[in-house]
């Protein structure tokens, strides 16, 4: 770890020092073109930084752009950077908070049969605990970078798949939303296993022999017409 810290320091500091090392020496005059390059480059760098910083935001939604417009507007009007930044940030936080949209820049996730991303109950579908509409689920999966070849685990709560309506709704969800988006492998999990916390815990509780979850496979809708 010490070596990693040292290497990180050396590379970061080295990169930042490159221009200074190139034109070292106390008495040497800076070439005019280098001076001009330095002045010219700053708006370009800052423009790149704006684009770059947007990649860490929810850039697929209109919210960061709305907040950006507000920031520019207030800056042009009042010429007060702090006021513009706070106004833009508050607007963005409100917009993002209200729509329940997450920015996934630093989010890490783990998906396996003990940590399903999706849960389904008679109250609706939840993705990572947040209520979503079925059409959002494939988008969220893609946002998280879940490969299409991965098995998608779905936690079925309160015996939802025991009722005809529930079975049908699940089948539609699997078939029309997940399969069509390319997520062809799904597995239903029952609450028995996911109620308890960690994987290890469950393993010991159930023993190695029992298989408390079952493959969903091609689920058939019961009742209704196709």
């Amino acid at each position, binding site marked *: 770890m010490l070596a*990693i810290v040292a290497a990180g320091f050396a590379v970061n500091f080295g990169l930042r020092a490159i221009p200074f090392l190139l034109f070292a020496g106390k008495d040497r005059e800076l070439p005019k073109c280098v001076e001009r390059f330095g002045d010219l480059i700053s708006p370009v760098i800052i423009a790149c930084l704006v684009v770059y910083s947007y990649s860490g935001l929810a850039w697929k939604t209109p919210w960061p752009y709305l907040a950006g417009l507000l920031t520019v507007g207030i800056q042009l009007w009042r010429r007060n950077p702090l006021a513009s930044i706070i106004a833009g940030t508050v607007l963005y936080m409100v917009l993002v908070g209200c729509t329940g949209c997450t920015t996934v820049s630093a989010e890490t996730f783990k998906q396996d049969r003990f940590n399903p991303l999706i849960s389904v109950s008679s109250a609706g579908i939840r993705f990572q605990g947040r209520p979503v509409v079925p059409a959002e689920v494939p988008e969220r999966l893609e946002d998280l970078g879940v490969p299409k070849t991965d098995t998608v685990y779905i936690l079925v709560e309160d015996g939802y798949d025991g009722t005809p309506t529930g079975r049908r709704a699940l089948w539609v969800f699997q078939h029309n939303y997940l399969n069509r988006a390319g997520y062809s492998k799904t597995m239903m999990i029952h609450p028995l296993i996911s109620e308890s916390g960690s994987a290890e815990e469950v393993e010991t509780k159930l023993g190695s022999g029992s298989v408390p979850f079952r493959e969903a496979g091609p689920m058939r809708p019961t009742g209704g017409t196709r």
Partner: protein
Amino acid sequence: MNATAESEALTPLQRRATLRRAFVDSLPVLMGYSTMGFVAGVLLAAKGNVILSPLWAFLSSSLWVTGTMSIAGVSEIADRTPVYAFALMTLAVNFRYAFYGFTMLRRWKGVALFRKAYLILMLTDENYALEASCQIRSRSRNLFYCTALSILNHSYWILGVTFGALAIALLGHVVDPETIRRHTNGMEFSMAALFIVILTDQICKKK
């Protein structure tokens, strides 16, 4: 403009005014760095697979001062990636830093070595953007502004990262990082807003 920056002494009044200006300018960075740093610290402690994570959080935040690698590098640290691979990744991810110094070459010419080294270390995205757009004409005041700004922003970053790691190491089961993240969700916009404001000003100034 004077050739040697330190020869011009600042009056206490000038110092206070410059310091105040640096502090006000650094407030958006405080919002961004403390939350982003906290996330980086939490990640390192929770997923970094290292012992004494707060110590490493403190060291890496003080010496690297880069948000990108502090967050993106955690999985490499956890996987025990060889040092050379880690260095290469840092080089690729942070290559943009190599250009920031060009703007400061003339401004920091003749600054004492240690101070210059510190200023160079602190050429982060946000710090650079603020320093590059600083309108203070007087050379010594400008230098004082840059130094103060660097120290302020550096401390926000270190505090954010270290507290993030400490929170997980000490209270990992009491504090849910997800709750904190949800409450500060969207605050990362302050960094984008800072760049937008600086760019707006630069474009207007040119016209």
